């Protein structure tokens, strides 16, 4: 087979549907990555327009351009859009597009999940845009502190849009994170050990795990606050045993890791681009990986530095102050490793490099002011002033937007397959960078002069007028520059000249394919031995195109890729990907109805849409695997492998592990909240604790034993045992729930409802899986193709058992202790 015929055959198998239909049925990561990036940039424009409105309003004192009601919506939405609808999705888009190409594989681990996440993002984001246009957008600040954001301070629907819309969007973050993690661990080129991965993959791995552990506290907080708003369950109302500070803990437990979730992908792009621009290899690969991992870990220990002014004891503050300054160390390791890399190479003044220099100049200042606000007494003075506003824009624009512009210009030849057409690029650069510093540098000083953030206007005579005027004018200069970048991109994509492959002479695998990339990425999966395969084997692209790698022959006419060992990268099994389908967009739409029902209080919609989601999920899962065992199949280069359906650890098992990691963090946050209320909230204990006789141990331990044993016994009778066990566990939880009839009475009762509801939900999920397995066996699937599925079911059963035992203990513990 010639390279061209192979290209045609693979394209037939992998191509998305033609025409507009393709937009909705594609599950291909190249398409979805581009769609993610385009939508994220759309939201960047919306957020940017809001920023322009803010600066127009603040340009002069006593401005009557926008009143406080609208101004509050505008700044709340500016922060919300930039954080949740621009920065995180832009990372997801970049990772979705780049990772399989850099890792040398053909798609992400769960192509339909990519599409589902994307559509959840689009629908959730649309809800927010609708709220904005209708003038009922959230207006309590992007961190939504109750009681201001609860029914007391915000009786309208505004806050509900935030809580429900953002939670909906977070589905896309969680699914992308599961996807990215499993892809990096199991889907790489043959022989690519963890230590030979491109550095961007390490950063993406750390970021994805951080999303899995950082977002659940926020999702929990949003659910609790929405329950309080919708049903009067008083989690944050101090009079009924709640505590407003609980929200702040949950929010910042997410919110600080979030900063690094935004910064790390940018650092990954820098670590990839900078060595290429300097014509050398990255200095200190191992140190940089260690720095990224320790940043990820440390960032979970600093959330309280957003709460220095809430009256927490000084020794507690000292601990978090130390942790906050310590986080500067791994950042410094990376910065100096990059400077060392520049030093050992010969830097070239291409546009991506210019943006990296802008990054250095800006981010270093942002980092230094960050150390300043980590010092508690200083923070007491500048907290909630424009000093903080300036600091966070230095960090986020300097540390994320500028590197992303470098990435845009670096990978544009890859996205579009054309030579970059640098005419507007440098002009835009010289507008954006001075414009940015003109906007924010002096605002530090305004903050020190006492200018609070979030005021809609101010009186003359406080020394702020000139600063604000300069800031407003500069911000418009920056906006014009960003508009030029947009025009530049459009011009490049449409009219520039076709370019050569690998214009920067880079060494990573994404440049080993023709550009724009074909739907299948690699005509055959390469075998690699070094971190920069193209440096060490310049003939690799030709070998790949000739089909000299794995899975180069496409006789089975289906979408196949190689799954490798986590550590060594040795080929383990063949994954068969699903084809084009509208199921993800349909399922996202039905999920949207669920959230819409919550938002509009049309509660009849909720059970209906839940049933719809279950039906979609059933269709989704049922299509996996084959009814007949295929045994060992030739995988190229003399190797024979089984398909994922016939192994003990299929991708679904790995996905479940990481989904359970996020789920477990959610549960852990819930227990944290419960313990926090119990020990810290002022109005405890509640009028009565739930108590149950010792007989409750019987269904609890009996059910646990049956479930654990059932999933380990031979399938048909074992499944029945497990289902009986789960039913017993559910019965015990339902009984405990019936002892706390009124969830609005006290935060304790409300928490009990959430705990028990969480356990019952997991009984249902596990029951559903057991029923599905039973149905599969009855439909005639042999043991060879169900062993992986049984192990997935076992994971979820074990988790349900653990959750039940912990929640039951948590519910009864206070009663037993008093």
């Amino acid at each position, binding site marked *: 087979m010639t390279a061209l015929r192979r290209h045609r055959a693979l394209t037939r198998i992998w191509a998305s549907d033609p025409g507009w239909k393709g937009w909705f049925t594609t599950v291909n990561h190249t398409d979805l990555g581009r769609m993610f990036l385009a939508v994220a940039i759309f939201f960047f424009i919306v957020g940017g327009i809001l920023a322009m409105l803010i600066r127009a309003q603040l340009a002069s004192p006593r401005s009557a351009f926008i009143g406080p009601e609208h101004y509050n919506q505008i700044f709340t939405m500016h922060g919300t859009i930039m954080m949740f609808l621009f920065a995180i999705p832009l990372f997801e888009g970049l990772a979705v597009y780049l990772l399989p190409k850099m890792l040398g594989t053909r798609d992400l681990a769960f192509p339909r999940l990519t599409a589902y996440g994307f559509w959840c993002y689009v629908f959730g984001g649309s809800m927010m845009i609708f709220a904005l246009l209708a003038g009922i957008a959230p207006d309590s600040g992007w961190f939504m502190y109750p009681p201001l954001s609860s029914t007391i301070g915000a009786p309208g629907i505004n806050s509900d849009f935030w809580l429900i819309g953002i939670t909906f969007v977070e589905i896309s973050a969680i699914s992308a994170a599961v996807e990215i993690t499993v892809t990096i661990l199991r889907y790489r080129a043959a022989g690519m050990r963890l230590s030979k991965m491109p550095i961007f993959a390490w950063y993406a791995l750390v970021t994805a795990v951080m999303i899995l552990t950082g977002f659940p506290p926020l999702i929990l907080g949003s659910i609790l606050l929405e329950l309080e708003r919708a049903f009067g369950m008083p989690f944050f*109302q101090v009079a009924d045993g709640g505590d407003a*500070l609980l929200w702040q803990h949950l929010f910042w437990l997410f919110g600080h890791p979030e900063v690094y979730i935004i910064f790390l992908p940018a650092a990954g792009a820098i670590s990839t681009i900078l060595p290429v621009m300097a014509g050398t290899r990255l200095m200190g690969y191992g*140190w940089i990986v260690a*720095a990224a991992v320790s940043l990820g870990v440390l960032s979970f220990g600093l959330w309280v530095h957003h709460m220095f002014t809430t009256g927490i004891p000084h020794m507690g503050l000292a601990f978090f102050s130390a942790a906050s300054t310590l986080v500067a160390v791994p950042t410094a390791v990376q910065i100096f490793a990059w400077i*060392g890399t520049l*030093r050992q190479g010969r830097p070239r003044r291409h546009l991506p490099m210019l943006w990296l220099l802008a990054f250095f100049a800006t981010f270093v200042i942002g980092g*230094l002011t960050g150390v300043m606000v980590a010092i508690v007494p*200083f923070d007491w003075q500048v*907290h*909630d002033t424009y000093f903080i506003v300036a600091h966070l824009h230095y960090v986020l624009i300097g540390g994320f937007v500028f590197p992303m512009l470098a990435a845009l210009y670096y990978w544009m030849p890859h996205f579009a397959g054309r030579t970059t057409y640098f005419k507007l690029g440098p002009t835009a650069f010289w507008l954006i960078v001075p414009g940015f510093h003109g906007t924010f540098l002096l605002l530090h000083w305004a903050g020190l002069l006492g200018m609070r953030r979030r005021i809609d206007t101010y009186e003359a005579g406080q020394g702020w007028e000139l600063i604000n005027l300069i800031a407003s004018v500069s911000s418009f200069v920056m906006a014009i520059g960003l508009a030029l970048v947009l025009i530049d991109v459009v011009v490049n994509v449409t009219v520039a000249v076709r370019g050569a492959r690998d214009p920067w002479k880079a060494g990573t695998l994404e440049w080993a394919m023709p550009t724009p990339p074909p739907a299948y990425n690699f005509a055959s999966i390469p075998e690699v031995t070094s971190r920069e395969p193209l440096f060490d084997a310049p003939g690799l692209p030709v070998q790949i195109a000739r089909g000299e790698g794995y899975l180069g022959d496409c006789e089975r006419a289906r979408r196949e890729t190689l799954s490798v060992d986590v550590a060594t990268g040795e080929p383990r099994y063949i994954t068969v990907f699903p084809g084009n389908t509208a199921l993800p967009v349909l399922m996202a739409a039905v999920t949207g109805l669920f959230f819409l029902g919550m938002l509009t209080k049309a509660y009849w919609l909720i059970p209906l849409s839940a049933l719809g989601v279950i039906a979609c999920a059933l269709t989704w899962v049922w299509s996996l695997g084959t009814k007949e065992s295929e045994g060992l199949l030739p995988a190229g280069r003399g190797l024979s492998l089984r398909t994922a359906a016939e192994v003990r650890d299929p991708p679904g098992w790995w996905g479940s592990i990481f989904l359970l990691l996020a789920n477990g963090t959610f549960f852990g946050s819930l227990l944290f909240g419960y313990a926090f209320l119990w020990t810290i909230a002022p109005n405890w204990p509640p009028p009565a604790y739930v108590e149950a006789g010792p007989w409750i141990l019987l269904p609890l331990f009996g059910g646990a034993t049956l479930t654990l044993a059932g999933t380990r016994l031979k399938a048909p009778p074992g499944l029945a045992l497990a289902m009986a066990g789960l039913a017993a566990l559910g019965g015990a939880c339902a009984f405990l729930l019936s002892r706390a009839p009124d969830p609005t009475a006290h935060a304790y009762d409300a928490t009990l409802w959430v705990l028990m509801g969480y356990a019952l939900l997991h009984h249902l999920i596990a029951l559903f899986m057991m029923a599905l397995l039973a149905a599969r066996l009855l439909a005639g699937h042999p043991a060879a193709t169900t062993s992986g599925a049984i192990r997935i079911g076992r994971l979820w059963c074990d988790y349900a058992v653990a959750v039940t035992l912990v929640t039951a203990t948590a519910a009864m513990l206070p009663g037993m202790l008093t």
Partner: protein
Amino acid sequence: MHPAGPAAKVIATLWWVLLGGATAIFLFVAGLIAWAWYGPSGERDEWGYVIGLGLVFPLIVLAALLAYGLVVGERLLPRPGPDVVRVQAEARQWAWRFGYDDAPDRETENVLHIPAGRPVDVAITTADVIHAFWVPRLAGKLDAVPGRVNVLRIEADRPGRYEGLGSEFNGPGYRDHRFSVIAHDAASWDRFLQGDAP
């Protein structure tokens, strides 16, 4: 940035130290990049850059800074003393009500009276949402959290009028959520406590 009390003064000094240090570090990093760019292409020096500059250098600087910050923080804590005056501040949307331990039946709205030259402990509470109490020229800020009493130490060196702000976003009336602090000399403070209109 025009401190008028001991707490604000230490914080202002802290700021000038931080600014000086930050400027020095920024110039150092900028110089290093310029040298990497224009200097002769150097050899691989992983130890110097990654360990020396990346690890050791920030650890030393940060340890010193942290110790300094802790000492300052400890000095600002409200400690009991013979001449400490206690007042209460209750915030609501969008006003402040102040009470005085030394004159339990006196209550003032949006104006806080304190004696100059004596440490004052403000017990901060809220009637509705979260607010924050901040008199920029006298001290840092502290939040008013539902169900809690937070105590902030302030002190004015000289008699006079100081502007106070609610500095935690609290809804549509946030901009004008302000108050005044009037610092009295000893004689006028006594008169205030005895009920004379100031």
